[in-house]
């Protein structure tokens, strides 16, 4: 049976992990490879690297990092953050990333989704959607959550699926950072609207939260802080889920 996936997210700036990491026994918490290896050892199913490097000139640092990750890490990984062109995506995939994700550029130019899907295949293309409830509908935000776009996230999810997205990485801006649980109504609405896998993101604080997301049909759930701060190890989380009857990869 296909397992529900647990995904760890790492924010990268100029080739280093940023955001507080409080791991013990890690020589250098800023080294993405060391952290990724630790997650792999604990049983993570996938890793997402979000590049928040502001300047385009420093992109080469990311490509070098992707090459190193591809050589050292034996679980699939996704790279994204500020990607605008098919050319950049080609380079990232060529450097060894399994998948890429697009967010702002896809909203600005939806045809980019089909262009990219043609080049790298739908299975390797994730569309990240950041959404926030505006009283009437879940509204799509771009530019790292700074810009409201007036688009209904449910409609947008259907459109990206039609255009060739292979997966949706759905982040709720209402729950992100709260550690009070994933946005279940939003996640449920998107899962029911599309056939492609949906990754729930934003708000994970405890193992129950993952259970709730899988119960309503999310294929995967992503978290950062819960793992970074060592609140729960991936293994503890998976053991909990297995006890509650969720099919996870535990070995």
């Amino acid at each position, binding site marked *: *049976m296909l*397992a529900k996936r647990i995904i760890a997210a790492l924010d990268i700036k100029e080739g280093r992990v940023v955001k507080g990491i409080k791991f013990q026994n890690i020589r250098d918490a800023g080294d993405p490879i060391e952290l990724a290896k630790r997650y*792999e050892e604990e049983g993570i199913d996938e890793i997402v690297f979000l590049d928040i490097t502001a300047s385009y000139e420093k992109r080469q640092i990311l490509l070098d990092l992707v090459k190193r990750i591809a*050589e050292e890490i034996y679980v*699939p990984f996704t790279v994204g953050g500020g990607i605008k062109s098919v050319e950049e995506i080609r380079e990232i995939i*060529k450097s060894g990333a399994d998948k890429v994700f697009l967010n702002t550029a896809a909203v600005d130019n939806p045809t980019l989704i089909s262009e990219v899907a043609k080049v790298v295949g739908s299975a*390797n293309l994730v569309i990240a959607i950041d959404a926030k409830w505006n009283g009437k509908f879940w509204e799509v935000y771009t530019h790292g959550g700074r810009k409201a776009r007036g688009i209904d996230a449910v409609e947008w999810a259907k459109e990206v699926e039609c255009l060739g997205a*292979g997966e949706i990485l759905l982040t709720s801006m209402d729950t992100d950072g709260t550690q009070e649980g994933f946005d279940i109504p939003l996640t449920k609405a998107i899962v029911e609207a599309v*056939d492609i896998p949906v990754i729930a993101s934003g708000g994970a604080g405890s193992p129950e939260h993952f259970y709730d997301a899988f119960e309503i049909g999310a294929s995967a759930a992503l978290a950062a802080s819960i793992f970074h701060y060592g609140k729960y190890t991936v293994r503890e989380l998976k053991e909990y889920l297995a006890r509650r009857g969720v099919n996870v990869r535990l*070995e």
Partner: protein
Amino acid sequence: MIAIVDLGIGNLANVRKALGGVITSDPYEIERADKIVLPGVGNFGAVMKRLEPLKGTILDAINEGKPFLGICLGMQLLFEWSEESEGKGLEVFKGNVVKFKGVRVPHIGWNQVFPAKECPLFEGIKNGSYFYFVHSYYVNPQDKEVIAAITDYESKGNKVVFPSAVCKDNVFGVQFHPEKSSKNGLKLLENFRRL
């Protein structure tokens, strides 16, 4: 020496790291190798076209009895043809490659692999171990004897049971990505390396 056939798509750094060997598209190097790995990402027809100049070399090596491992599309290419596109595969095995129907496509993620017969690739790997998959098509061998392992994929209330590994004599194929399957994948690659 193991030749990892490079078709210019995707990065094979961790396949090489796990197996040793060289990443190459040079027919002479492939001819000299004592084992061949054919990884594959992309479209059946397009990749087969890129493979055309190496087809003879690869088939000779297989006929000489050299161990051969096809990964993902590299496994599908062992068959006669695919629903994905026109053109012939390597035709080492009889049968074709078909698209998933009635389930969410692509099939992405970690799924369980159940051996269907003795196969040295799975030595020391537990029955029902998880491997990482990402694909929309799967092989449909005419001779069911070549099926080395099966996997079931259930979604939207439908279930498809498909061959996730094949093996016959010196020829092996796996639908999943051992190079992305953490410890089990490394074990499988190690088993191939030691053949």
